[in-house]
């Protein structure tokens, strides 16, 4: 179990680093030449993305492994988690080494030398064995077991696909390769979401004490709808890419099935409102609730962006970034924080801590909302520029945004500080808990 806590600490540290690099990178928007700043932007952006996203992946794995310790008192293969953690340590060190030495032989979001993908892949193989060995002792799986299993299996498959470009057969065909690249980026997010949504559902059953919830047909229906989308909806990233029309149409149709999820969320809203009053001061529940509100907001945005006619205007603008940041911070990070509070923080906090955390919680939610709003405004402005006459150059357009860019940097920094407060609190608690037990 200790290993799982270390996995969680590692994830929290990476999330913190990710936001720090993100802040440094955001400052580049104000620079007038490349020599300003601590590190160049093309080093900072990979550092930011990799720290944040690996923080999310490792956080998800930590949550799932902690849940397994709770479910199975005689957990099998728990020693394997040590190897799992070790492999992560090796790969993350390797990735940072790659970036600091400017060895960018990978590609967007995975810029590190592909050699470091190997320990990541192995760590997932180990995790797959670990969860299967335990889950298979039960016959009737709740839907969250399925989600965890799916998350791991699909991550492994898609991660292999992520490196097909190494073969000239794929690399030489510019458009097919671009298509595969975005197939991977779309599905990998889906796989990680399966891990996290599964954990979120598990937490809900624990908190409400209603374990039937995860066995209901509706829970499975939603799981399969998610899986179906993971497999076939990634094409909405590449509506503009001249690949076969079939991919675009399939993705358009599949994406639209998510309206069902959206409508279900709206219908369930009222029930949740009374429930959320009941557990208001229980932080794990609060963060899960926050993640569900962000699901609604982001899903609505995603549904719009998946309509090609809308996508034509938003693609390649900061509206896409708004969606990405909204889901990674609003949904993924909130679920991880819920898990971290659940397993790390004591259920009864003293008044001062409670007030501080309460303030930080609301600060994070409102700053994130404003941050996303500013990104959408930047996106709308860029879209207008793209559709206007071409006499205004890219730099002139960027310069016209200078005020919004300052707001974007300041909001980002404030969001970083408030989230850092919560992360540091959890980090500190994780050590107190350990010395007591």
């Amino acid at each position: 179990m200790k290993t799982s806590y270390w996995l969680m600490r590692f994830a929290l540290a990476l999330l913190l680093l990710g936001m720090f690099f993100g802040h440094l990178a955001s400052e580049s928007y104000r620079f007038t030449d490349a020599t300003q700043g601590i590190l160049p932007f093309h080093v900072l952006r990979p550092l930011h993305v990799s720290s944040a996203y690996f923080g999310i992946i490792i956080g998800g794995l930590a949550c799932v492994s902690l849940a397994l310790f709770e479910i199975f008192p005689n957990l099998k293969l728990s020693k394997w988690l040590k190897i799992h953690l070790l492999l992560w340590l090796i790969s993350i060190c390797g990735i940072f080494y790659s970036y600091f030495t400017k060895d960018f032989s990978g590609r967007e979001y995975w810029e590190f030398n592909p050699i470091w993908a190997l320990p990541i892949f192995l760590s997932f193989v180990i995790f797959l064995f670990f969860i299967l060995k335990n889950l298979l002792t039960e016959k009737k799986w709740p839907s969250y077991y399925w989600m965890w299993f799916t998350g791991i299996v699909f991550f492994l498959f898609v991660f292999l696909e992520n490196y097909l470009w190494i073969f000239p057969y794929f690399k030489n065909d510019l458009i097919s390769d671009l298509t595969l690249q975005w197939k991977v980026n779309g599905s990998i997010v889906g796989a990680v979401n399966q891990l996290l949504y599964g954990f979120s559902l598990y937490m809900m059953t624990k908190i409400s004490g209603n374990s039937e919830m995860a066995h209901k047909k509706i829970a499975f229906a939603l799981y399969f709808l998610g899986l179906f989308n993971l497999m076939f909806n990634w094409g909405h990233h590449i509506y503009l890419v001249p690949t076969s029309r079939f991919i675009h149409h399939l993705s358009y149709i599949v994406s639209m099935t998510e309206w069902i999820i959206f409508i279900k969320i709206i219908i369930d809203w009222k029930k949740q409102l009374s429930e959320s009053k009941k557990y208001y001061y229980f932080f794990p529940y609060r963060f899960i609730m926050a993640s569900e509100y962000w699901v609604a907001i982001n899903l609505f945005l995603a549904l719009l962006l998946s309509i090609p006619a809308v996508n034509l205007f938003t693609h390649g603008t900061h509206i896409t970034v708004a969606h990405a940041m909204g889901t990674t911070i609003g949904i993924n990070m909130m679920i991880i924080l819920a898990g971290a509070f659940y397993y790390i923080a004591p259920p009864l906090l003293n008044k001062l801590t409670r007030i501080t955390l309460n303030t930080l919680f609301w600060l994070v939610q409102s700053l994130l909302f404003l941050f996303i709003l500013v990104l959408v405004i930047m996106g709308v402005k860029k879209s207008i520029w793209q559709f206007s006459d071409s006499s205004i150059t890219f730099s002139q357009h960027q310069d016209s945004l200078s005020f919004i860019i300052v707001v974007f940097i300041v909001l980002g920094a404030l969001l970083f500080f408030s989230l850092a407060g919560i992360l540091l609190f959890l980090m500190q608690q994780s050590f107190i808990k350990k010395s007591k037990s």
Partner: protein
Amino acid sequence: MPIVAKFYSFSPLKIFITLSVLFLLFSFSLYLKPHRNKELRNLSTQKQVSAGKEVWQRNNCHTCHQMYGLGGYLGPDLTNIMSKPGRTDAYIKGIITSGVKQMPAFQLSDKELTDLLFFLKAMNETGTANPTDYQININGTYTLKK
């Protein structure tokens, strides 16, 4: 009859396997695409285009620039840069080796620069990333303007 009933009874495993098989078929149909792309195999500049793509990748140009709107946002989309007025080979090479605004000066060899230009030209020939070249259809899709 009981067998039929059993097959149709709700089983997550069956649905999972069915979906996964469909997904694999879809994936493999995509893997065959480069094989069917005959035009590409006859391209005499293939080697240089690939080498140029590698230069693009190794120098992280995508952290600021986009291709078909995919990539970072600190610089302009470069899908069709080679067909823009005034963007001669010498001009592009000059920008890359001396830098502009937030873009650092990249110390690239002559060969790397030449390969990079092959890549940019090949990218330009794949299509257009300018949204104003497309028209919206009634069913929510869009197609290239005639």
